[in-house]
């Protein structure tokens, strides 16, 4: 009785159910804590390696990189080049998305268009982006068309195949119901087709965007006079690891922000109905 009283008084960590399933019992550490720990260990490890093991031109410390990032912003370079890149990125992505969706819908509805585009899509999915970046950089020289066309060539197929899957997955039973009730065509499109394809559009945007920003930087590196890619090339030629890492981090942070705070927010609003349903 006494022992039980003791353990009942002590704060008992609840058993993590998932851990039990695979065979062992863990006290539950919140996932947030684990992630924080991960970042802390990573930064400390980086700092330690850069201080004790590697010279600063091989592995600059996190502090040095952060300082570089600040100075890039302060000098105004960030604004100039980042905006240039963003501009090309959004123009290219917008075109790639609209064109890709249109082609995806055409492919979903017609065997002819499916066969027409299938080889092109297969080729662009397997060929490394480097090839497209080189070709576009070469053909378009310093014009912003280079990155834009490269984005269209590489991101479009990702959008297309996802939209195609969406069109194929359109729920026939709901469309039949709308047909039987003589619902008008615009109402059908708005209430059945668009919500049914929406998840696929989000996936398409996600994959397309992920490719787009990388190819923008790559094409800029080979053939532009401005932009993040151009700056990375400059830093590389100056053999400044600090500079390369700084600009790389700008890119990566931007990508994460877009994914987390833009895409996920939109998704959350759109798919409230899914999360609130019980199984």
């Amino acid at each position, binding site marked *: 009785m006494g022992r039980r009283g003791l353990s009942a008084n002590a704060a008992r960590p609840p058993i993590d159910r998932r851990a039990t399933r695979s065979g062992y019992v863990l006290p539950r550490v919140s996932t947030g804590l684990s992630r924080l720990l991960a970042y802390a260990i990573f930064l400390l490890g980086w700092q330690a390696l850069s201080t004790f093991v590697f010279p600063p031109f091989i592995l600059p410390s996190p502090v040095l990189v952060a300082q570089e990032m600040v100075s890039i912003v302060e000098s105004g370079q960030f604004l100039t080049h980042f905006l240039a890149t963003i501009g090309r990125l959004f123009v290219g992505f917008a075109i790639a998305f609209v064109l890709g969706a249109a082609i995806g819908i055409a492919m979903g509805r017609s065997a002819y268009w499916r066969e027409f585009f299938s080889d092109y899509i297969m080729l662009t999915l397997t060929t490394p982006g480097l090839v497209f970046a080189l070709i576009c950089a070469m053909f378009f020289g310093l014009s912003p068309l280079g990155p834009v066309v490269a984005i269209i060539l590489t991101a479009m197929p990702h959008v297309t195949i996802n939209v195609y899957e969406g069109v194929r997955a359109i729920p026939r*039973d*709901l469309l*039949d*119901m*709308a*047909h*039987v*009730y*003589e*619902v008008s065509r615009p*109402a059908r499109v708005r*209430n*059945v087709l668009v*919500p049914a394809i929406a998840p696929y559009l989000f996936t398409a945007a996600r994959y397309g965007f992920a490719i787009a920003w990388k190819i923008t930087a790559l094409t800029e590196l080979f053939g532009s006079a401005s932009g993040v890619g151009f700056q990375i090339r400059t830093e590389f030629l100056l053999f400044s690891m600090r500079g390369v890492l700084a600009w790389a981090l700008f890119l990566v942070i931007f990508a994460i922000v877009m994914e987390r705070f833009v895409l996920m927010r939109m998704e959350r609003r759109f798919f*409230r*109905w*899914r999360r*609130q*349903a*019980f199984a």
Partner: protein
Amino acid sequence: MAQVEVSHLHKVFEGESRTVTALDDVSFEASGHTFVSLVGPSGCGKSTLLNILAGVEHATSGRAEILDGGRRARLGYVFQSPRLLPWRTVLDNMMFVQPDQGAEHRERAEHYLEMVGLSDTRKAWPGQLSGGMQQRVGIARAFSIEPDALLMDEPFSHLDAITARTLRRELHALWMETRKTVLFVTHDVFEAVELSDRIIILAKGGSLRQNLTIDLPYPRDPSDDRVALTKTEVLRQFEDLDLVAS
């Protein structure tokens, strides 16, 4: 008043290696405030018949239509699965099928939702409702457009027996109040006897075998002797046919 006219209806499905006759020279009529059940084993074409009447499928030959004063009747349809738009609230689902989105129709939709006892769910997502509740919304939806006739395709077959019984009672109450023409497909002979004025029996292969009139007064209590007798009688006819069918 809605008039159901089916005349020498043929429907054949062409498969990869064989053809399947779903409906074989089916003819019958129904008018006014009649509750007609289409009964038969699986493969007898009863769902196909309903789909042709609804305009979802086309007949191979023959005629099948529901008219109201000469023009094509407005139809409500209840499916086996509720077929609610999962991304719209219950009330929005009701509004989706209304001929216009004005206040009057909104009130109508809310009224029928209340008649099936689901007013509280009007802002809920279909995914938050049980299967029985979703089906009730489907029934309310069909009634709410105040159609000339109602088509129902085994609406209770996916529900457990208790929920099915409850919904059957609710459907009957709704029908008694509105007295529409109803075409009700089922494989459950007892259900047909409890609900209908007329029972049409189709055999496997799509031919019409019996066109019965059930002359019992409503409400039909399952424990009533006459009801039980009628059930046995119809079931016997049903089983006789199965022996004869190929």
